[in-house]
């Protein structure tokens, strides 16, 4: 009663399995690594643009962390060390594709062109995500872990059902892959052949919990085969490789071949957030070792080596990044106006009688206080 032949099964199974070692195009010193089979390197213009965005992303990240110290942000989860992943994720997408980010993906949002003040709205103490998800095709940054992966699948399925050739990409962390929703999303996507790319930024920690306590799998990318989802693992600090693999993944999904799972091996250089004390659970030596794998310096060395990037280019990019940061700083230094009464306006399209009453109570209190 087993209708499929062993050969067919072997072929199917192998088509889903990731490469044994993470795909890499560029060595840590910036030199070109032996070309991996099956992937095409992005062209130089793309890499040049990626570099520019990484410089801005890095600067944005530093600025955001600084803003927490000045009390201008409630909390900030840094992207430092993960810029190759986040920028490649954005570059692999078309403008009309959708992005489903987590709380850690602010650099991706900035790179997508979302106003950085809007990106930081929620973390600043407002009650909504700041930007317009429909206009930006960026879902609100998601905190309940792995839940957004299902939304991305639903969005992809919606686009597929309408016959559009658009793709959704869901970002998720290594820790998030342990949640049931991650599993359910991969399964739904595979069964429906939804055009969604699952992009795991495996930064080796879920707050304090190291990968070895999170999973005993040879690599997280191996989860794909259990759903019939094509999978790959990639050196997440090699922008060239991440962009090559994600582009292939997005093309695969866009062409109607169903979902694709990509695991990027990277590292969270900073603490979980500014409120976290990473020395409680990891060695300085480990962090130091990863400094040599910095994605920005690696791409810089690589592009310089290829003659694509000059000293002047680097200086210009840094200057642009400084201007970007200065503008952000200035705009974040104004006090935010938030109207308590608006709290009642978007619970439903029309407030219920109960909400109208409660709004009136609050309004009356405010009036009483003003008197």
């Amino acid at each position: 009663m087993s209708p499929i032949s062993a050969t067919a099964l072997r072929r199917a199974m192998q088509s889903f399995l990731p490469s044994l070692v993470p795909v890499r195009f560029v060595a840590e010193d910036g030199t070109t690594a032996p070309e991996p089979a099956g992937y095409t390197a992005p062209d130089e213009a793309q890499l040049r643009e990626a570099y520019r965005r990484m410089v801005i992303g890095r600067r944005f990240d530093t600025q955001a962390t600084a803003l927490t110290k000045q009390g201008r942000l409630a909390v900030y989860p840094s992207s430092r060390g993960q810029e190759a992943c986040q920028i490649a994720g954005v570059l692999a997408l078309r403008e009309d594709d959708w992005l489903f980010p987590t709380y850690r993906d602010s650099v991706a949002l900035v790179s997508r062109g979302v106003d950085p003040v809007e990106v930081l709205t929620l973390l600043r103490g407002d009650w909504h995500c700041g930007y317009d998800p429909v206009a930006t095709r960026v879902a609100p940054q998601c905190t309940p872990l792995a839940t957004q992966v299902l939304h991305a699948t639903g969005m992809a399925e919606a686009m597929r059902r309408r016959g559009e050739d658009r793709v959704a990409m869901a970002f998720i962390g290594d820790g998030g892959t342990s949640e049931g929703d991650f599993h359910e999303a991969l399964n739904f996507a595979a069964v429906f052949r939804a055009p969604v790319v699952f992009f795991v930024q495996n930064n080796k920690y879920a707050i304090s919990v190291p990968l070895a306590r999170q999973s005993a799998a040879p690599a997280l990318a191996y989860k794909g085969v259990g759903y019939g989802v094509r999978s790959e693992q990639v050196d997440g600090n090699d922008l060239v490789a991440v962009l090559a693999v994600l582009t292939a993944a997005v093309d695969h999904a866009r062409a109607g071949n169903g979902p694709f799972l990509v695991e990027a091996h990277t590292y969270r250089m900073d603490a979980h957030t500014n409120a976290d004390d990473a020395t409680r659970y990891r060695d300085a030596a480990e962090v130091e070792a990863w400094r040599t794998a910095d994605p920005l310096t690696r791409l810089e060395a690589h592009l310089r080596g290829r003659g694509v990037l000059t000293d002047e280019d680097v200086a210009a990019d840094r200057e642009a990044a400084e201007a970007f940061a200065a503008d952000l700083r200035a705009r974040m230094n104004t006090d935010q106006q938030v109207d308590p009464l608006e709290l009642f306006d978007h619970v439903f399209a029309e407030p219920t009688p109960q909400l109208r009453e409660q709004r009136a109570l609050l309004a009356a209190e405010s009036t009483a206080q003003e008197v």
Partner: protein
Amino acid sequence: MATLTMAQALNTALRDALTADERVLIFGEDVGPLGGVFRITDGLTRDFGEERCFDTPLAEAGIVGLAVGMAMGGFRPVVEMQFDAFAYPAFEQIASHVAKLRNRTRGRLSLPMVIRIPYAGGIGGVEHHCDSSEAYYAHTPGLKVVTPATPEDAYWLLRDAIEDPDPVVFLEPKKLYWAKEEVDLAPRGAREFGRAVVRRAGSDATLVAYGPSVPVALEAAAAAALEGRSLEVVDLRTLVPFDDDTVAASVRRTGRCVVIQEAQGFAGVGAEIAARVQERCFHSLAAPVLRVAGFDIPYPPPKLEHAHLPGVDRVLDAVDRLQFDDTPDVRHLVKGAA
């Protein structure tokens, strides 16, 4: 006009919604060729195609999460949870996303989706198949919560729920699926989504009920009438929004109130109703607002449903305790009556 069971009325509502709006999609476990374990989606896949009504893998968080994404993407999903307790795996998706997405996006994204849940007991179901879970949803800001008590209401409330721009948890009283009624499906003028209805007028006391308890309330009122007591029956229809006006107007007229719910009593919707009624009608009340609710126990098995469910006798006992004879009831004040 047609005579329909509530199950048929719901099926018709889904059909009419699929016809009226191509963005409407139906999915869930066994809703396709099987037509759902209660046959509410019977024939929809056959008549509207796989594209409009389809089975999903078996995962409730997945179903609701997929619906969230599809609603963000322009569809109007109507999903079915197979039984009340089997919606619990989706609780995080419902509480943290379905209920909150409009607010989190300052109204830029709305989630026009309906989560249909067959709920409550009275059908001899085994464990986990008869939970009354309305309070979990009604307590969660951002969800509308609806429960019909008649086939006609089932039809119109479901149509309204599907057309609503906000997410609706649509609770179907299982034991009423086979209740029959003449149903008027002619489009009406102003729909009254959010309004309760007085199912029977009366003057001595108000029975507030919803979903599966409405027939119990009506039966109790009929029985009380034989004893010369005139009970008014209010059917809430929507728990969120709550129709304070209708309920308070009735209680102010009758001066007495009994709230009926199948769910375990503690911190249930009945508690909310009792609390609201005494807040708003205190000076009209001749007696405390009493509750007749399920016990605070896991839902019992088929053989013991009768002991657990608020029945006519228990409602009439509560009415008797409404101090019509001016003697304060001290039964509740006696500690540890056992």
